[in-house]
């Protein structure tokens, strides 16, 4: 472990400022992998190019060239069978409607999994909205070409859980289920304290429609809103299984903790899961289930960042803070009994110098500086319903910023986590560290970094898959282009990554796929293939203006074909100028790069 750390360290220092040239020591010792070669796509320069989805036309696998491309399975709003893909429904299964009668079609498909069941192939897609939506689509696979086509789609009912909330990224678990997430749960403290609808976050309001309440109606009071909107119901990993006949079964894993779950990612042991927390001043979590394939009970840990150096995204040893054991049923019972923030914590006003009165612990998380005290007997419930606050109280690090995708390279036992930008709490000091321990002290990199985490067994924790460190692997590079440059208005080097988001590893192929979610970093988001051996980056897809690439996910072999799922969220559109702002053009694309030959 120590050796590995030193190797990484020296490598990183040697790599210096060469963007995109980081890697890890172990990879170099291994015999070269048959890395597939994607034909690169250029940076979109013309207006026309900037409005299109452009993908690699070709991939070379084991020396053989294959024509591929970006294929659309469904766009949001498309009908397949009786279903309308992305239509948001209320708890009764009726479309949620605004006052003009309009329906919501989410343009935010954030993850689509492919789930073979017997002869059939299903796709579970979830939409990052409020209420959230999850659609189960039956696909047909063309046996020869491998192309996928939607046969029918339908909404998955979450009414038993009070609905679904902002499902973000996802994973197909080692046992083949769809593991989704619920991002950005609201600050239960603020919701409880709100005196009027004015004090309710705009972001939260649409959820009321799930229960038939119009949040903007003149007569809607904050009491009405709180009657239907229970903050503690949302913010958990969500698991969906699909039977061969296409019936879904769903569960929310309250035991895994409530946070801004970007993604919960289960390791090959089928017990250890890493959970990324999206936002500002957030933590990084690990859940170790009691039993394989059963995420309903286990122990939750939060990482503490012990910084070693700050070069190239930084290097830290990770220490795991035990937040205790819990199970779904216990936590769910507490939620449904109506437990509130004030039942869990006593609070005090922080002093001017950011310290707290005796008996209270100062924490700085997404919700800023707070002085908290867990009420007697509430530790277990607090550890799950307020996992981030609780973790901070226990000494874990809550200074990470925009933590996004997770993927695992089993060949080299490296876990990758993307950090959309290194900023705010991750910087040294400043208002985002006020009152907190300032564990992370890094120079700002607004273009973001993909981190590597070495995985080792840990007897104390009782898992073979414990991350021991965290170091920058691929970093974006801020760059200023001259106003007359064809790349003007890009603020990150166009030959590197900008704001990495979803990532997926092509196992056995030493290739890390990195999807971007960037604004001005790159005018058009790109998807990259990163060769972990050479450190080279190949641009394999670019997406229209204003869109976000999500859901990149690698399937090495589905009945003889490999796929790289890729969703384009909320594009501006690609048609000619006069129809540029046709709202239909803003519909999301759910599709894939491929089909490629099976690569297992």
């Amino acid at each position, binding site marked *: 472990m120590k050796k590995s750390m030193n190797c990484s360290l020296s490598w990183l220092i040697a790599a210096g400022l060469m963007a995109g040239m980081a890697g890890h020591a172990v990879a170099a010792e291994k015999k070269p992998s048959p890395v597939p070669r994607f034909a690169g796509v250029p940076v979109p320069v013309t*207006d026309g190019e900037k409005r299109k989805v452009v993908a690699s036309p070709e991939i070379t696998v084991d020396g053989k060239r294959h024509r591929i491309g970006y294929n659309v399975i469904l766009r949001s709003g498309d009908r397949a069978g009786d279903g309308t893909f992305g239509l948001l429904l209320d708890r009764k299964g009726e479309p949620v*409607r*605004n*006052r*003009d*009668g*309009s*329906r*919501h*079609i*989410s*343009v*935010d498909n954030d993850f689509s999994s492919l789930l073979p069941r017997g002869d059939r192939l299903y796709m579970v897609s979830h939409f990052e*909205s*409020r209420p959230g939506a999850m659609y189960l689509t039956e696909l047909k696979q063309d046996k020869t070409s491998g192309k996928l086509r939607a046969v029918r789609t339908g909404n998955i009912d979450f009414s038993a859980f009070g609905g679904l909330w902002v499902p973000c990224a996802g994973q197909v678990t080692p046992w083949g289920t769809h593991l989704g997430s619920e991002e*950005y749960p609201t600050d239960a403290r603020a919701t409880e304290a709100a005196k*009027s609808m*004015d004090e309710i976050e*705009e*972001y939260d309001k*649409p959820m009321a429609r799930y229960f038939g309440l119009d949040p*903007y109606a*003149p*007569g809607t*009071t904050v009491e009405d809103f709180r009657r239907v909107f229970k903050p503690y119901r949302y913010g958990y990993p969500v698991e969906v299984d699909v039977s061969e006949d296409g019936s879904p079964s769903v569960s929310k894993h309250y035991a895994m903790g409530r946070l801004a779950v970007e993604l919960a990612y289960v390791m090959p042991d089928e017990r250890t899961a890493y959970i990324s927390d*999206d*936002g500002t001043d957030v933590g990084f979590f690990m859940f170790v289930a009691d039993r394989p394939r059963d995420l309903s009970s286990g122990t939750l840990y939060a990482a503490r960042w012990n910084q070693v150096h700050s070069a190239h995204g930084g290097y830290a040893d990770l220490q795991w803070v035990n937040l205790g054991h819990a199970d779904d049923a216990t936590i769910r019972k507490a939620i449904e009994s109506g437990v509130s923030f004030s039942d869990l914590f006593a609070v005090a006003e922080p002093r001017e110098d950011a310290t707290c009165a005796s008996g209270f612990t100062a924490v700085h998380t997404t919700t800023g500086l707070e002085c908290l005290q867990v009420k007697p007997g509430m530790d277990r419930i607090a550890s799950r319903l307020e996992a981030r606050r609780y973790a901070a109280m226990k000494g874990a690090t809550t200074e990470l910023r*925009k933590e996004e995708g997770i993927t695992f390279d089993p060949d080299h036992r490296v876990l990758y986590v993307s950090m*959309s*930008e290194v900023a705010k709490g991750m910087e040294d000091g400043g208002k985002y560290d006020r009152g907190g321990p300032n564990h992370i002290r890094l120079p700002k990199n*607004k273009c973001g970094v993909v981190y590597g985490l070495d995985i080792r067994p840990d007897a104390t924790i009782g898992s073979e898959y414990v991350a021991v460190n965290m170091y920058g692997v691929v970093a974006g590079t801020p760059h200023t282009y*001259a*106003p*007359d440059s064809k790349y*003007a*208005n890009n603020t990150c080097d166009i030959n590197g990554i900008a*704001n990495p988001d979803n990532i997926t590893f092509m196992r056995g192929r030493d290739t890390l796929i990195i999807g971007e979610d960037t*604004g*001005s970093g790159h*005018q058009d988001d790109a998807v990259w293939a990163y060769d972990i051996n050479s450190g080279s980056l190949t641009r394999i897809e670019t997406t229209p*203006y*204003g869109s976000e690439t999500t859901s990149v996910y690698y399937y090495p072999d589905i009945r003889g074909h490999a796929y790289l799922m890729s969703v384009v969220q*909320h594009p*501006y559109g690609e048609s000619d*100028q006069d129809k*540029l*702002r*046709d*709202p239909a053009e*803003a519909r999301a694309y759910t599709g894939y790069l491929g089909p490629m030959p099976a690569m297992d």
Partner: protein
Amino acid sequence: MRTREIRFLLLLLAAGILPAVPLHAAQVDLKSRTLVNRTAYIPPQCYAKTGKPDAKSGKPERGSASNPCYVCHTRGREPNYVKDQGLQLAYSFPTPALKNPWTNLFADRRQRLRAIADRDMAAYIRQDNYHDPDGTIILARRLAHLDPDWDFNGNGRWDGYIPDCSFHFDDQGFDRTPQGGYSGWRALAYFPFPGMFWPANGATDDVLIRLAEPFRSDDRGRFDVDVYRINLAIVEALIKRRDVVIAPVDEERFGVDLDRNGRLGRAERIVYDWAPLEGRDMSYVGKARRLQEEGSLHLAAGLFPEGTEFLHSVRYLEPDASGRPGLSARMKELRYMRKCTWRSYAELEEAALAEVKERDDFPDRIRQPVGDPEHGVYNGTGWLLQGFIEDRDGNLRPQSFEETVYCIGCHGGTGATTDATYAFARKLDSGHPRAGWYHWQAGEGEGLHEPRVQIRGAGVYYEYSYYLMYNRAGDDFHANTRLRQRFFTPAGVIRPDLLDRLHDDVMVLFRVSPEQAMLLNKAYRTIVLDQDYVHGRDVNVQPVAGMLREVEQDRPTGVSRPTVVDSFGHRFGGRLQDERPAETSATSGQGGDAAGLSARELFGRGLPGPDGHRYEVDWQGMIHRSRYSLDVAGVYFPFPRRLTLPTRMIIPAAGNPLCANCHRIGYPGAAGEDPGVQAIVPATTGTPLPADMTALTLDPARDLDGRWSPDGGRIVFVSNRREGDQLWLTTPSGGRPRQLTSGPSTAAWPQWSPDGSRIVFLSEDRAGGTCAIELVNVDGSGKNTGRRVLVRSSGMLARPVFHPDGHHIAYAARTGGNWDIWLVDAASGLRRRLTRDRRMETNPIWRPDGRALAFKVAPQGKYPLTQEYFMTFADGFEQPRIFRWDGPESVQMSDWSPDGRRIAYTAEIISDASGGDRVTYAAMVSDIVLEGERARAVNTRVLSRCRTLGDRGPVFSPDGRQVAFWGWDRSGHASLWRYDLEQDRLGRLTGGGFDIYPRWSPDGDSILLTTARKGGDDLALLRPAGQ
């Protein structure tokens, strides 16, 4: 070369070297999409300093901050889902915008101005740069022969908007082509937006609208100006969410029930009635109606239909000698926008919330504008924006991409807009000349009253006054010293006298002296010469001090709580907006009003009123006592003048028995002259009674205050036909009245005992100088049968009323100079004092169940602004429990509903019905909730909706479903009205006479009233249809 030049200049700027003249003479590239200022969409106003202008450093003190931010950054009204009021509190800029790029505002132009001769400048602005001398539109000509430098996509033709408005308007505001046709453009008059669009801040402007072709065409696609006018009115109703008055039309012709009365007939208004989820939708007319039905055109509140265009010319100042601003012939800019795509509420909401998420996730991300110099720039909510601006020589040229990106900051993404626009929602309505459809050139708008806004939680304010007070200046940068010196004292205190004048005439604010206009025009001319609009096109003469050169990210502005403008420009008390049912069935909790706010949100805020208390006014015009203040020094509520029209007509109230009957002002009143009636009689004598009205008394004497016996068989009234005022008895079928009481003392205020056997009344012995509460038996044939005195006093007494138990009588008495409520036992004469407060308590009214008593409290011992209190007697009469009023101010309660759950009363409201803000009376009904120590009046309705000039005396029908009241018309007549509580229907019962004091018969079939139609005051019975 160009780039190098700019870089060099940036270098100079960075080094802090600011050349005196010219700052940056830029060559404008119309073929570039690159932004020099990447945050060109963040306008200079966002850099305004919010601290005290003289504050040297540090953060502004709490409460001392000026707040110009609120006019743009506020909680948007659905379907504007932008809620950016937080931007009032902190400079939440993305990092690239932290350094103020609007360097033009720091230029000192004084030296350059001297080089421009007044005469040249005057000639310059008078020169038309839009039309050739032969009337051709210059831009249209130039765009037809496109300069390759203007051809962004190189296809040899101009693909953007080609100006096609003649600026030649007919008397309805329609633009007419030289051939006499219609271009489709229509000019509108509107209240200029607060701050930078006031002429005194540098420019004049106009706004024109055009709906797409289907809105101008009949079913068969032929142009039809009536179709167009109606569609524009429909759009106006949808944007303002109010009814819009139109010239009468035959609905049959259009096949649309415009006034929503359930049938096709003659319509005089577009009724706003849109709630598609409840099955209530509206329809365009003509071809647009067909396309709407097909689904290719849309209709929704707060949104313009597809294809709507706006044209907005910005011009130099050309005031007349009086300073009245005029529009120069020369245009500074011609701004254009077109709605390209329909966005549903759901789509707009998703987009706005995605923006919230984006800003939260990545606060440093900046907008990526879409578009190009030729087509324009998209604003993100369906509109394409484009503009033309003066070139160095003063000719209009297309704006560069960056110059247009500047426009999307205001027209997309702020809470203040209505579908990305400002002016149309502020259009003058039908109460104004030409219903607000005219171009400023038409010279209307004299005496325009100041508009009002509703500030969330703080009531209704005069909009410009509020801006002046809260911003502590007349412009965002505090650079307009002239305005400041006019409206503020040297100590910085706002001058109420000027605000008073401003309320009546906005020209008080808009005037600009010819000298000032010359200066501002010249200053702008230097920007034109420099062609560096990308560094700011706001007019400044010397460096603007009230603007930050650099912003610290998220630095607080010093504003402690955001001001949220909820709605604009509604008349008080008029038919309100939005969901109609809310007006009628606001039954839930707090009693919502139709403006979309719960009563609780409207209540309890405000600023000092005339008596030192804090008051506020809500949209219905009701005056409420305040428990809250914005706590902003120098911001107060401009309480309207109290000139109630009814009172004004019959003043002096003192000594008028008619008034004294209710008010006891100066009671016992003077005999003889009756100024109130005298004032009315000339207009009303000799009018025949309507068919549904029967006279009960026809004596020349004054007969009034008729009261039904509990069984409805008899009526007692007061008449001065013999021995001064005495009680008389008659029957509903008429006949000869019988005298019940005789002198020498006079009698008033008769009230039946519950069993109908006795009457309690007030008597006055003028010779002895005493008042008394007396009883008289009804049965018998003589006068004064069984008459006996219950209470006699040398102080004043008033209003005896029987308790439903028939034993107790409540009344008001003035002892030791203090009015209180008393109770007397009719059998024993035992008296109890129910109130001991030093305030004035009068007017007791028993709830029908006898368990509660309403009474009036005048805190200062006089009118106005009185309140209604209640007491209950769970622990007996000795220990009444008092509930203090929590409802609109100044009440005179007149009735309980039969079930005791509602009260009918007269409140003072601020009415716009009389043409100005005046305090007047209005008949009201509220649900009354007695809880804790409060008597909460909820679900309050202004029954007349200000269709009268003032009204009073509401009484419930015996079944509690209807309320009758009386009110004054504009003509000076008094009429009876009936309001149906269940149907929310208001109907006029009488008209053209002087009919007051309605009293329902116990069977509810007829209404007893006092009428002056026959010369004096007589009693009459009305049997209204549908009874």
